[in-house]
């Protein structure tokens, strides 16, 4: 990679914070304790980080709370100074980290656009020209001269976002911008990310939304206690992170199997409506789980089939079961009997993420320890949600609105007070 194509280069970057143990920020303390070295704890926020970001890359930074993600972003944005190491940046960096920087609740939406816009580096003439666009995008036409303190949090976020996307920096730093706002807002965020990608801007996104990292980031960094422990394709790094934090630490990778073997699972399939294997079902789409079994022992009189689903990070999502023996005709000698259990999901309620399917056959009254055959991670599959909705579950409910009476005057319900300023 040539020097020209690099947007960010970080070499041996370290950052420590000195956290005073007795936080008395007074002159008296300094004067009376001038001889004793101030007692403090040193927090190593970043330890010897080195990486390069080519121009136009969408980089995700993930890690547990306190891993140094935000510190890294603040150093890249020049808000913090590094203790040692070098950071080189080619191109202009957006000066903002979060949405609505500089917003003041006592000012009107219009005044806040000019103030916060100035922080983002937008000129007054430009802001005046784009004011209608910004207000329109935020859907706040009627409230442009209302004070921000009278806005709902949703309205405020919309305004902040409408303003933030006006910034024309080549390198954008974003800290948990996805953490706020509803689904519709997140959709707008994603649309904007897509636009940024098309425009070839370099983006560094710090977030806990691993799904978003997988979808948008070309690459991800994983930080752990200030150290760079993962760097690579977004899917691989998020998987690494999930393994690190998940309950099933080792089991996530390979199929694990246990059980008495009196009845065995010979195959597990996930198929679409045509019966073709498909490990990437759509949210709301058709899925059928199929399990082939064979009875190995005559003593087996009944058994139940379990399907369990865990999310990639180990979250237990659901479990369904069927007492198979009540539906299957078993002959005199059951040994060698085979069959297939089907479980049909006409509309899959899982949202976009990666999941693992566990399959088990066991005695109707026995616990998991009494399994005939258990397959942990029988199938690893990925659900695709075209709408990129956050969360785990799409309930598939139906909406209805019944107007009781028409309002006399069309008054916006979000605004608590509408005093003209």
């Amino acid at each position: 990679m040539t020097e020209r194509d690099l947007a960010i280069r970080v070499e041996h970057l370290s950052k420590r914070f000195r956290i005073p143990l007795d936080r008395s920020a007074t002159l008296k303390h300094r004067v009376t304790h001038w001889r004793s070295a101030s007692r403090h704890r040193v927090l190593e926020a970043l330890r010897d980080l080195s990486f390069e970001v080519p121009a136009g890359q969408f980089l995700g930074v993930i890690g547990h709370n306190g891993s140094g993600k935000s510190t890294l972003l603040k150093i890249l944005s020049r808000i913090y100074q590094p203790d040692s190491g070098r950071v080189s940046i080619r191109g202009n960096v957006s000066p903002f980290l979060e949405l609505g920087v500089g917003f003041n609740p006592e000012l009107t939406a219009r005044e806040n656009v000019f103030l916060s816009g100035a922080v983002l580096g937008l000129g007054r003439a430009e802001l005046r020209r784009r004011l209608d666009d910004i207000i329109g995008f935020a859907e706040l036409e009627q409230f442009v001269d209302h004070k921000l303190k009278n806005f709902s949090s949703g309205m405020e976020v919309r305004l902040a976002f409408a303003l933030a996307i006006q910034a024309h920096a080549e390198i954008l730093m974003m800290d948990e911008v996805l953490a706020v706002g509803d689904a519709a807002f997140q959709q707008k965020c994603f649309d904007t990310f897509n636009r940024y990608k098309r425009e070839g801007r370099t983006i560094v996104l710090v977030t806990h939304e691993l799904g978003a990292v997988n979808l948008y980031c070309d690459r991800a960094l994983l930080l752990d206690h200030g150290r760079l422990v993962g760097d690579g394709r977004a899917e691989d790094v998020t998987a690494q992170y999930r393994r690190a934090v998940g309950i099933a630490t080792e089991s996530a990778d390979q199929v694990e199997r246990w059980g008495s073997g009196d009845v065995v699972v010979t195959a597990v399939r996930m198929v679409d409506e045509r019966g073709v294997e498909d490990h990437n079902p759509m949210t709301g789409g058709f899925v059928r789980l199929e399990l082939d079994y064979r009875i190995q022992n005559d003593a087996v009189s009944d058994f139940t089939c379990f399907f369990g689903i865990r999310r990639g990070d180990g979250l237990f999502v659901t479990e369904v079961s069927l007492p198979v023996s009540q539906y299957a005709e078993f002959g005199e000698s059951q040994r060698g009997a085979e069959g297939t259990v089907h479980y049909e999901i006409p509309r899959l309620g899982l949202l976009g993420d990666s999941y693992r399917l566990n399959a088990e056959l066991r005695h109707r009254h026995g616990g998991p320890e009494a399994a005939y055959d258990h397959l942990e991670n029988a199938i690893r599959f990925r659900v695709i949600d075209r709408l990129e909705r956050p969360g785990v579950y799409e309930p598939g409910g139906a909406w209805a609105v019944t107007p009781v009476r028409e309002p006399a005057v069309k008054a916006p319900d979000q605004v608590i007070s509408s005093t003209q300023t």
Partner: protein
Amino acid sequence: MTATIEAGVPGAASPAPRSLSSFSHYRHLTLELAISQFKLRYTQSALGYLWSLLKPAMMFGITYFIFVDLFQINDNTRFYGIQLLLGIVIWTFFSECTAASMQAVAGAGGLIRKAYFPRSILVLAASLTSLFTFLINLVLVIVIALALRQIVIGPQMLVAIPLLLELYLLVLGISFFLASLQVQFRDVGHLWEVLMQLLFYGSGVMFSLTYVLQRANLAVKPSVVSLRGTAVTLHFVWVVALVAANPIMQIIEDLRHALINPQAPWTILVVTGHDAAVKQLHPLNAPWVAPIPYVIVIAVLTLGALIFRARARNFAQDL
């Protein structure tokens, strides 16, 4: 363009945003911050901006009543009232601007932790808000003086421009100093309040340097003061010199000369004993005092800017 952030190099290579040149961007940001602060200061008050005019007027009324009517401290010049008003307007600017700037950084944690820009912008913006009010007040004082025919229009008025610049630089220097210390030591605010009381009486807001000399003339012999049993000889010349070395005193005194009353002597003539009227009053000859106010202004500005510069890189993590 490549910017490098290196450890231990304060403010190394600032990358300029391409949308606007960094200078015009930061100038624009300074103005927007100042405008917002101006709006915020007078929001939710019935009289709004009028307060910035009413406050010095009220303070003038009180001071005039106490010192002129009650204690008869009056240097018997026909311009006393308007000179007092001018002194109060200057003092109000000095005290309000330093107080506002002191909080400019400590009170902007949200902005500092989340966005990068030169931190000095915050202090500049806070001072601009006060400066704007001050200039309007100054114009009003001149209008009042014109209406009362208590003003002598002449070329000496032009000297007001460098004097106002000197005042602004002094205020800025103190502001940088206070703003950077306030981040870590909140005691600074309280200490400054007390210091302001002392400065108020030592800055000639309600008396002129000539008046101090008049009083000194009455006690031309050194007074002996007993301090815990030890006799201390107090030369009034030294008191006069001390007062004259105060840059705020010098600025107020010279602005009075420039804007209102050319008969009031320039401080430089007072301390060097070159003013004819002063010579009669007291044979003061202390030319070494003359440059002290300017040296103080330059020193305060340099020191304030240096301390601010050294501290600014850590504001984000200290707040």
